[in-house]
């Protein structure tokens, strides 16, 4: 029998000692701000919008952690950044005002942007003052992103952008949207050619309509964004024209492997443990233990991906695995919390409100940022099945 082939590389990574201080500092800040009433609801997490908290996080040096100092960053490691993001999530802090910019728009601009773009866009991100959203999905292009139709045509001094983006989270308060659009005619031989990314100033441009779409829980998080002959100056084209697909896919490891793929509704587990405090029921301990043990393992996997990102790798398959397993667990969490609380005959109204709210948000986890089906396709390709 031959030696077993290794199909995955989750290099073991442990968080360095120096992250402990960063973690303690951030915990203290969050505790202080929570007590001061800067934010209250732990259940909104990275969908909660609190510009004041984001600004304070920027001021205290917790944003743009991996960015160069030249652009307001702190030149710290991906593992440091990992610690900051997981602490924000575990505390249920509202972070929508900086989340996307700090996670992927900043790194994207640093990777593909011009010096002028880096100077203009990155420092405000590190200060927690600049909010970005992602313009990818369209009404007729969901998982099949390469089929998108939003189009930028050449005009004097820039581009004219027309088309519709949808499911655009936070577009109603974001400052900028990085829109993936077609700058060349569709080539059926090469579906990924002719796409480009442009940075659209949502507040300073004309020809943009942002329409709210309420999610099933009644919350306004995502939108339909219609561009109608919206002028985008030349200096807002990101990277090379026609290189959009490559740029978009390079964001994915950052977008998919982070702790938001398994800690988004951690507050539900906190609430459950809070109402139980102790239990002599075996099934309760077993179900809570099943969740906790898998969360712990996922966290180790996510840390491993952060370590690989730090080493300069782009572990797209491993990141997809973390998102697939993590979002499935996140979806299971409110169901398990409910099952346990039913057995325990919990009648705490506030607790059930948390569970009902979390149940309504759960379907999104395995859809947003790449559906489970698409992720599994990526994994299958990584395993050379297709």
């Amino acid at each position: 029998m031959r030696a077993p082939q290794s199909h995955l590389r989750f290099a073991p990574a442990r968080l360095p000692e120096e992250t402990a201080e960063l973690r303690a500092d951030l915990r203290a800040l969050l505790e202080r701000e929570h007590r001061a009433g800067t934010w209250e609801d732990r259940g909104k997490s990275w969908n909660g919008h609190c510009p004041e908290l984001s600004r304070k996080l920027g001021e205290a040096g917790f944003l743009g952690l991996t960015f160069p100092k030249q652009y307001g960053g702190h030149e710290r490691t991906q593992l440091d950044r990992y610690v900051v993001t997981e602490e924000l999530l575990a505390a249920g802090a509202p972070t929508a005002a900086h989340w996307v910019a700090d996670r992927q728009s900043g790194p994207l601009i640093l990777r593909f942007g011009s010096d002028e773009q880096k100077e203009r866009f990155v420092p405000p991100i590190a200060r927690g003052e600049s909010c970005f959203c992602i313009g990818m999905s369209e009404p007729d292009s969901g998982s099949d992103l390469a089929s998108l139709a939003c189009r930028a045509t050449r005009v004097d001094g820039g581009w004219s952008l027309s088309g519709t983006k949808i499911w655009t989270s936070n577009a109603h308060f974001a400052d900028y949207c990085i829109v993936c659009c077609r700058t060349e005619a569709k080539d059926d031989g090469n579906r990924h050619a002719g796409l480009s990314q442009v940075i659209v100033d949502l507040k300073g441009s004309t020809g943009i309509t942002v329409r709210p779409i309420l999610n099933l829980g009644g919350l306004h998080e995502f939108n339909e964004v219609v561009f109608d002959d919206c002028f985008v100056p030349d200096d807002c084209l990101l990277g090379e024209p026609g290189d959009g697909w490559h740029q978009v896919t390079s964001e994915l490891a950052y977008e998919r492997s982070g702790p938001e793929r398994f800690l988004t509704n951690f507050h539900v587990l906190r609430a459950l443990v809070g109402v139980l405090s102790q239990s002599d029921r075996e099934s309760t301990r077993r179900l809570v233990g099943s969740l906790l043990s898998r969360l712990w393992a996922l966290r180790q996997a996510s840390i491993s991906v952060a370590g690989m990102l730090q080493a300069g790798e782009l572990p797209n398959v491993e990141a997809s695995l973390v998102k697939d397993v993590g979002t499935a667990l996140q979806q299971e969490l409110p169901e398990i919390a409910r099952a346990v609380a039913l057995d325990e005959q919990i009648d705490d109204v506030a607790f059930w409100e948390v569970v009902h709210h979390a149940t309504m948000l759960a379907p999104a986890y395995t859809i947003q940022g790449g559906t489970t089906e698409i992720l599994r396709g990526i994994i299958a390709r990584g395993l050379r099945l297709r």
Partner: protein
Amino acid sequence: MSSDRLRTLLLETSSRLFAQAGEPELQESVDAGSFPAEVWAEIEDNGLPTALLPAERGGADLPWPDALAILRMAGAYALPLPLAETFVAHDLLHGAGVEPPEGPICLALGAPRSPIRHRGGSLSGSFSCLWPGSAHLLLVGRGEDGDSDGATLLEAQEAISRTSPTPAQNAAGEPVGHCASVQTEAVHELPPGTWRSTLELCALSRAMMIAGAMERILDLTIEHVQGREQFGRPIGRFQAVQQQVAEMTGHVALVGVAAEAAGAARAAATDPRDASFECASAKACASELAGPVARTAHQLHAAIGFTREHVLQRFTRRLWTWRDDFGDESFWQQQVGAAGLAAGSDGLWPLLSRS
């Protein structure tokens, strides 16, 4: 020799030796109940079972993380030998200042929920152990109420006559002895907590072996769906198949990462209790996911994988066995759950993020 180089060399040697134990004839004789003594002799000649011992005791001063890596490899070959048990026994005996005997050693701890007891210098209780009569038996008992723990080592044949085990077979086909009641003197007094720490080390070792077996199962499954053609193409080209392989890969990855991380936590802990949560979580995950991984692998292998002739069963039968060994998922999940509940709402995250 650098430690990295030593590790690579040991893994290469292990891989070569374990491959021999994977020969079908040998597996058949194990299924028929006979201990593969020649293979054991060969791994002993290569210094593997004693590797954890210090050099002056004939060992290689191997650190536990490297021993765990060897056990992962053992899992990837479905090694039908009590190597993990012998590692743990050597570690325990050496710590107690006792020279371990030559040959394989199996462990009797009692069931996790009803340990062998150590009281007044004697051990009592019920237990199951592997390879009765073929391996020495190390009985380990837990002291009552902070009392010290205790152990006694019985030579293979002596163990049979002293414990009269009822013979049985586990799902992997290996002989198991069930002893309803043992009453024996505890020769070695051990610090309180030794029984627990031994159970955790055994559970961690099994998690590693499960991780290795799962990696092999994934490897076999990928090879199968790439090679098997139906409707004019490899079945791996069908999305229904790809989705299942991908889901299974996630489970295999999670168990591998968990076992690896728990091993690192245990190695970094000055007191084994500092890694209890991690070891418990790793075995809980490994045991919980063993079922789903075996199920998907069989579904994708279809009829051929359901035969004794096909190699897959050697690995899936071990998943079904190992998930129960040294604490099943129900036991370890309850340990983890109890730790979480004890930590409380505000202590939950610090517990989860401590390493």
